[in-house]
């Protein structure tokens, strides 16, 4: 029996998203697929039958490196459930043992950096358009295109917030790395 649940997670919240998917699995609902921006389809399962993990891959799903990676994961019992852009949803049977994609700080840092770098061009684009609008408004003495100005400003700050949040996570891990692996 399939059910659809909607819940919104932002790009800097993939760990929270994992937690939620695992909570659902603990309660007998296993995630099958994801539809942007916030729809998840579930089917019934044994309580805690699966553990879910999410990763943003370096390359698109059709890239040979991604395919090699996914095949390797399959060999160790990890199923690929669904994907969105370069994001992939994985799961493994809980009885097979603990399931983590990254155990060392180095790979965790690299993963966060990947997400950060993915957002950066969008952020820079929004920020430059915003600055353009702002300088035009200051030059002409009044704020033109009120509505679009607001949207661009909003997007810029939104993306900026994600970038800062990711940056802080990366710095925290890097500090940790000074002490241990």
């Amino acid at each position: 029996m399939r059910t659809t649940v909607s819940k919104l997670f932002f790009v800097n919240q993939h760990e929270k998203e994992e937690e939620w998917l695992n909570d659902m699995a603990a309660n007998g609902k296993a995630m099958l697929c994801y539809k942007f921006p916030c729809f998840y389809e579930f089917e019934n399962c044994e309580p805690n039958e699966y553990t879910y993990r999410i990763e943003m891959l370096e390359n698109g799903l059709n890239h040979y490196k991604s395919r090699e990676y996914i095949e390797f994961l399959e060999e160790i019992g990890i199923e690929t459930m669904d994907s969105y852009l370069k994001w992939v949803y994985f799961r493994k049977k809980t009885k097979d043992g603990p399931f983590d994609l990254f155990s060392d700080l180095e790979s965790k840092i690299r993963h966060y950096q990947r997400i950060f770098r993915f957002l950066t061009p969008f952020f820079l684009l929004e920020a430059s358009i915003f600055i353009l609008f702002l300088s035009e408004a200051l030059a002409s003495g009044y704020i033109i295109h009120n509505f679009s100005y607001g949207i661009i400003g909003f997007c810029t700050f939104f993306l900026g917030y994600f970038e800062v949040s990711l940056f802080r996570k990366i710095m925290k891990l890097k500090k940790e790395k000074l002490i241990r692996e």
Partner: protein
Amino acid sequence: MENKPSIALTEAVYYILLSLYQPLHGYGIIQNVSSISDGRLVLAAGTLYGAINTLLEKHWIEALPGEKNSRKKEYVITNVGKSAIEEEMKRLAELLQNGEKIVRGQLG
């Protein structure tokens, strides 16, 4: 091989190399490492994948020919990998020896 100053191996890499003194596939490595570390170290999938690729690049391990397109590719340690392990064991022995000296006041 050049004489490089010894750089610490991560424990995941150390145990992966140790596991590959006999040919093993990915799943076998995870199981072996978990067992020899008494369940303390369960290799993470992505970390294992990255480690195997790096070790292959460094020629510390090699992939065994096996059946073409086999879903379970096996790996084994090379001689270069073995000397890396031996270097690492010397480093670990030095660390432990100094620890014992200071903490327990015993000499190596």
